[in-house]
């Protein structure tokens, strides 16, 4: 899902970089403030970044028999919040571009916009909305991961359609072309990522209540432990 190096024309690469910049700068300011107030957070945030990087290296079984990897943006947004994910996502995408040759530096802005900004915000928005209506935690987690994954691909389709409009039908034709190609592979993958995220979160609720409470995923201690025990 990463847009490869050199795939976007220079004007598009710059434009997506400019669009991403305010979110990343805001995230970097939040992170800097957090680290200055609580120096010990550096290590926890670094651990969160490493977790995000490693999560994207997991091979996810696909219904077609092949495998892909999760974006991790939904789980990351629930655990660390979207502003922090904008920074952690940018760091992860930079590492993927330089250490794994996934994505690229000229397409970093576009990839950050889809994977570190829109994906986390869309996933987190759905998660908070469902939790506000007292939807069970695991259902909210599933939809957060599903929506984060799918919205990432929708934005990528828009980015590609803008860069490569169809010769006959223009932007809309190209959007249909890219979105339909992604839909065939990505809807099953988004479901798979949703299910995997639920399984991971169930294990975390059982084994890491302290960390989840500290991260604000399980709010009131009493309610959290009740919910964890019930599961």
């Amino acid at each position, binding site marked *: 899902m990463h847009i490869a190096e050199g795939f976007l024309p220079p004007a598009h690469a710059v434009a997506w970089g400019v669009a991403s910049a305010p979110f990343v700068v805001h995230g970097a300011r939040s992170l800097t403030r957090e680290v200055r107030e609580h120096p010990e957070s*550096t290590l926890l945030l670094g651990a969160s*970044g490493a977790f995000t990087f490693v999560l994207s290296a997991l091979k996810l079984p696909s219904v077609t028999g092949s495998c892909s990897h999760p974006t991790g943006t939904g789980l990351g947004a629930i655990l660390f919040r979207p502003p922090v994910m904008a920074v952690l996502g940018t760091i992860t995408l930079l590492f993927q571009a330089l250490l794994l040759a996934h994505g*690229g530096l000229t397409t970093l802005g576009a990839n950050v916009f889809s994977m570190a900004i829109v994906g986390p915000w869309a996933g987190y928005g759905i998660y908070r909305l469902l939790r506000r209506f007292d939807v069970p935690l695991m259902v909210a987690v599933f939809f957060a991961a599903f929506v984060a994954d799918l919205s990432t691909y929708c934005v990528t389709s828009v980015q590609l359609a803008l860069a490569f409009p169809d010769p006959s039908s223009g932007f809309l034709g190209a959007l249909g072309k890219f979105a339909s190609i992604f839909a065939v592979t990505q809807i099953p993958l988004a479901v798979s990522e949703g299910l995997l995220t639920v399984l991971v979160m169930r*294990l975390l609720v059982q084994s890491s209540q302290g960390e989840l409470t500290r991260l604000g995923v399980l709010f009131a201690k009493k309610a959290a432990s009740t919910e964890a025990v019930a599961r």
Partner: protein
Amino acid sequence: MLPIDAAAHSSRWRRRHPVDKAVLGLGLTVLAISLPPWPGAALVLLTAVAVLLGPAGVPGRRLWRAYRVPLGFCVTGAATLLVQVGGPDGFVTLAGDGPVRAGELLLRTSAASLGVLLFAFTTPMSDLLPRLVKAGVPAPVVDVALVTYRMSFLLLDSMRRIREAQAARLGHTTRAASWRSLAGLGATAFVRAFDRATRLQAGLAGRGYDGTLRVLVPEARISVRFTAASAALLATLAALTLVLERPLT
């Protein structure tokens, strides 16, 4: 350690300042996307391969292993340009200029990828990250990136061992078992990452940690000769493209 970073640590240009390599590698990438794909990107591609295999001394097999990843994405992406949607001949038909557009895109992305690979194969991340502070990136963000970088290898190693243990316990024999194993792997990564961070924090607190991670960065100076030669090479490529564009098009 990941193969590209491992190669960077033993690179011939390991001791060169990252700015030297950025001017050349990232300069080639910028040229690849800015110049007309034919003959500009083709010239950049040939130059990047020559520099990678020649002066930079990157082993051909390692380069191919790294290069085939972006190449796969490029081919898949370029294939979509071969068809068009709508039009008088049918809903989905072959685009008239599709092969040309796909070929140009393939050239551009291949050349741009090789430029970044030239930088990545010669510059270890541990040399690059601490120097980002001088480039204006806030120090706390660089510190977080450094911890992320160093912890990633440990976590990836842990994941590999856990996966082997799961496989030895028939954890991947059925689809259901694979999902359970995968979920266990993700959750264990989280638990281990936070556990390691807590222990690191305790260790650093005992050593008077004040919120700044001080690391030794190998000393290197920006080479004026190397940077000037790189700039001259880039200028020559740009000039050659402009000269050859009309006769070759």
